[in-house]
C-alpha cells in the first residue's frame, strides 16, 4: 500500500473507473434500490469493510446500523456517547472511529484540529434536495435563518477539502452532511401550570419558584437562560450565541440571584433526568428536548412542548468523515452517506419527532398519515406510533408547534460554542456552586 495522506490523494483513476462501472451496472439493474451495482470484485472486498459511527443516542441508533448493513452489504457499527464524551473522542482519538455523528456547533472545536476531512458534495447525490437551511442559510420562502449561535450554514462549507478555513458561501466541500435537526423550546405540565405559556421569560416567573429547571450543559443551558432573560427585558444581547464577557457576567449574575432565591428545583444533564423531573411533578416548567416530552406523555402524564413567541433554540446534527478514511473505506463511507439520506433513516427518526435534512426521500418511508402528522402538523388520522411500533399519540392529536416550517421557521438561535467559552464555563461553574 502506498503511503497515503487522508482525503484526496488516492489514485483517482481507479475510483473514477469504479464509479463508472458502478453507474453502468446500476443503470442496468434499474428499479433496484440503492447499492446493487457493485462489480463483483468490489462487492467482495466491500464485504470486509466495517465503518464505525459514533454519535448521540438520539442519532446513532442501532436499528439504523442494522438496516444499513442489510442494504449496503458492508458492516456499519454504532456507538453512543453523550455530548461531552463525543467531542472529546472525536477530538482526541480521531482514529477510533470512521464516521462522526456530531452537532454542528462542535465544528468550531473540531475543525482546527484537522480530525475530519472535507466531504466532496459531487459524490453525495442528495445535496440538491437538502433543505436550504443548510445549503443556503435560508428558509424555502427565501427568509434568512437566524445566525445567532452556530447556525449550520456558517460552518457548512470548506474552502478546500482539507483546509481548516470555512468558506463564506457554497463550495464543493462540506464539513458535514446534515442529517437531523429540531427546534427546542420549554416543556410544561399543563395540568399544573393551568395557564397558557407564550414567552421564554415564564421560565423565571415567580409563580414557578422551586418548580423550574434548566439543563446543566453549559453551552446549551446558557442559551435557554439567555432566551428567558432577553424575553424578560433584562439584557438585549448583541448575539446570544456569542456573548461578550460582560454579557456572560450579567447573565450568570441573574441566574445566581434566581438560584439563591430558590427558583430552580434542579438542573438536569440527561434526557432521563428531564423526563423524571417532569413525570414526578418536581418540576412544572423546564428546558426540554422533544422526545423527552413524548416520553412524559407516553406515561400518561400531560406535557406540552409549548411554542413561544420569541422562537426556538435549534440544533442540527450531521455526519462527518474522519480524516483517516481513504481508499475503499472512503468509498464505502460515501456510499453510506448516500444510503443515510435515501429515506429509511429519515423515516425512522421522524417517528421520534426529528426532521430529516432531505424530507423528500423520507416521504416514501412514512405513511401519508404519518407524513401529515410529523411534517405537516396536521391532526393525526389514526394512532401515532413510535419507530418500534409502540403507542405514542391518539388519533386527533396535533404535533406541538405545527408543521416543519412553522417550527423551523421560528428559530431564534442555535446551539453554540462561544469565543468566550472558557470564561463562560468558569462562570457557569460559579453558578452551579453558588
Amino acid at each position, binding site marked *: 500500500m502506498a503511503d497515503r495522506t487522508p482525503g484526496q490523494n488516492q489514485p483517482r483513476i481507479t475510483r473514477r473507473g469504479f464509479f463508472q462501472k458502478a453507474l453502468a451496472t446500476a443503470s442496468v439493474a434499474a428499479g433496484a434500490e440503492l447499492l446493487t451495482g457493485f462489480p463483483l470484485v468490489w462487492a467482495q472486498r466491500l464485504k470486509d469493510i466495517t465503518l464505525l459511527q459514533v454519535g448521540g443516542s438520539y442519532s446513532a441508533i442501532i436499528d439504523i446500523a442494522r438496516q444499513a448493513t442489510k442494504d449496503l452489504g458492508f458492516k456499519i457499527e454504532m456507538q453512543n456517547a453523550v455530548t461531552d464524551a463525543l467531542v472529546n473522542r472525536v477530538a482526541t482519538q480521531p482514529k477510533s472511529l470512521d464516521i462522526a455523528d456530531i452537532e454542528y456547533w462542535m465544528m468550531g472545536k473540531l475543525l482546527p484540529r484537522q480530525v475530519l476531512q472535507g466531504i466532496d458534495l459531487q459524490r453525495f447525490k442528495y445535496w440538491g434536495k437538502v433543505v436550504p437551511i443548510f445549503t443556503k442559510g435560508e428558509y424555502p420562502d427565501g427568509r434568512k435563518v437566524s445566525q445567532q449561535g452556530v447556525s449550520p450554514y456558517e460552518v457548512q462549507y470548506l474552502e478546500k477539502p482539507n483546509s481548516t478555513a470555512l468558506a463564506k458561501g457554497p463550495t464543493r466541500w462540506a464539513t458535514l452532511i446534515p442529517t437531523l435537526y429540531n427546534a427546542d423550546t420549554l416543556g410544561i405540565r399543563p395540568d399544573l401550570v393551568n395557564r397558557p405559556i407564550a414567552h421564554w421569560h415564564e421560565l423565571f416567573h415567580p409563580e414557578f419558584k422551586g418548580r423550574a429547571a434548566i439543563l*446543566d450543559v453549559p453551552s446549551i443551558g446558557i442559551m435557554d437562560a439567555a432566551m428567558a432573560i432577553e424575553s424578560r427585558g433584562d439584557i438585549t444581547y448583541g448575539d446570544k450565541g456569542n456573548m461578550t464577557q460582560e454579557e456572560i457576567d450579567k447573565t450568570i449574575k441573574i441566574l445566581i440571584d434566581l*438560584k439563591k432565591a430558590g427558583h430552580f428545583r*434542579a438542573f438536569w444533564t440527561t434526557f432521563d433526568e428531564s423526563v423524571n423531573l417532569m413525570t414526578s*411533578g*418536581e418540576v412544572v416548567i423546564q428546558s426540554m428536548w422533544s422526545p423527552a416530552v413524548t416520553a412524559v406523555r407516553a406515561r400518561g402524564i400531560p406535557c406540552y412542548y409549548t411554542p413561544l413567541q420569541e422562537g426556538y433554540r435549534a440544533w442540527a446534527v450531521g455526519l462527518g468523515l474522519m480524516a483517516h478514511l481513504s481508499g475503499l473505506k472512503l468509498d464505502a463511507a460515501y456510499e453510506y452517506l448516500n444510503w443515510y439520506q435515501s429515506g429509511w433513516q429519515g423515516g425512522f427518526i421522524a417517528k421520534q419527532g426529528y426532521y430529516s435534512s432531505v424530507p423528500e426521500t423520507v416521504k416514501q418511508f412514512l405513511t401519508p398519515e404519518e407524513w401529515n402528522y410529523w411534517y405537516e402538523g396536521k391532526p393525526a388520522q389514526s394512532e401515532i406510533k413510535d419507530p418500534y411500533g409502540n403507542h405514542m399519540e391518539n388519533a386527533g392529536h396535533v404535533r406541538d408547534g405545527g408543521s416543519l416550517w412553522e417550527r423551523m421557521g421560528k428559530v431564534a438561535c442555535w446551539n453554540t460554542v462561544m469565543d468566550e467559552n472558557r470564561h463562560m464555563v468558569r462562570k457557569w461553574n460559579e453558578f*452551579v*456552586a453558588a
Partner: protein
Amino acid sequence: MKLSPRIVPYLQVAPLTAVLLVFLGIPLAVVVAVSFFDYDDFAVRPAFILRNYLELFGSSLTYTLYLKTLTYAAVVWALTLAIGFTVAYFLAFHVRTFLWQMALFLLCTVPFWTSNVIRMISWIPFLGLNGIFNQTLITLGVVDKPLEFLLFSDVAVVIAYVHLFTLFMIVPIFNSMARIDRAIIEAAVDAGANAWQVIREVVLPLSKSGIALGSIFVVTLVMGDFFVVKIMSGGQSASVVLAMSNEIALLQYPPAAASAVVLMVMVMLMVAAILRLVDVRKELSG
C-alpha cells in the same frame, strides 16, 4: 540455579511494582506534566507555564468548591463514624455467637449487592415532593405541604453519601473490635468501669486503627466524588471533581489536570494526617 537471597525480595515485589508503575505512576506523571501545559480551544500545547495553577488559586470558585467538598466530607465522616461505630460495637460485643455475627454482618452488605448508582437513585422517588416520605408525613398530618429540602439539596447529598459509605466504616471498625481480647474488658469491668467508661477507655482506643482506615475510605470517597453530588443535589451543588469534569467536557485538560494535582495533594495530606494520628500498621500487626 539458585538465586542469590538478596535478589529474591526484589523479584517478589517486582510484579506489583511494575503494575503500579504502569497503571498508576505513569498516568499520574502525565497528569502532573499536563497541568503545566498551555492550551486553547483547539489544542493542548506542551509547555511549562504556571497559568493553570495561578488561575486555580486566583479564583474564588476554587475556595468555594473546596469549602463545600470539605464540609460534605466532614459531615459525612462524622455521621458514618457514629453509625459505623455503633453498628460495629453491637455486632462485636452484643451479638454472642459467631454465626449470628457473620449473618448480621452479611446483612449489612445486602444493599451493596446492587450498584452504587441504583442505591443512590432509589432515594429520589423516596424523598421527592410526591415521594413516599413526604406522602407519609402529609398523611400523618405532620406537615401540610411536602418538604422541599429533602431532595435536590445538601440534605439529599449527605443522606446518599452516608447510605453509600457507612459500610466502609463498619467493616474496619468491626475488624478491630473483633480482635479486642475480652479479658481486657472483663478486667475493666472488674476494676469498676461502667459501660460508657469501657467504651471510652478500652474499646475506642483499641478500635483506633479501624476508625482510621474507615475514615480514609470515607474521606477519600467523598473528596473524589462528583456523581452523587450532581444527581442528589439536582445539579444545584458542585464539588471539586464536578468542576473538573466540566473542564474535561470542554477539552480544557490542563486546568483540569492542575485541579486534579491540587486535589490529590489535598487528599494525600488528609490521609497523612489520619495516619499520623494513628499508626495503622503497628495497630494491625499488634
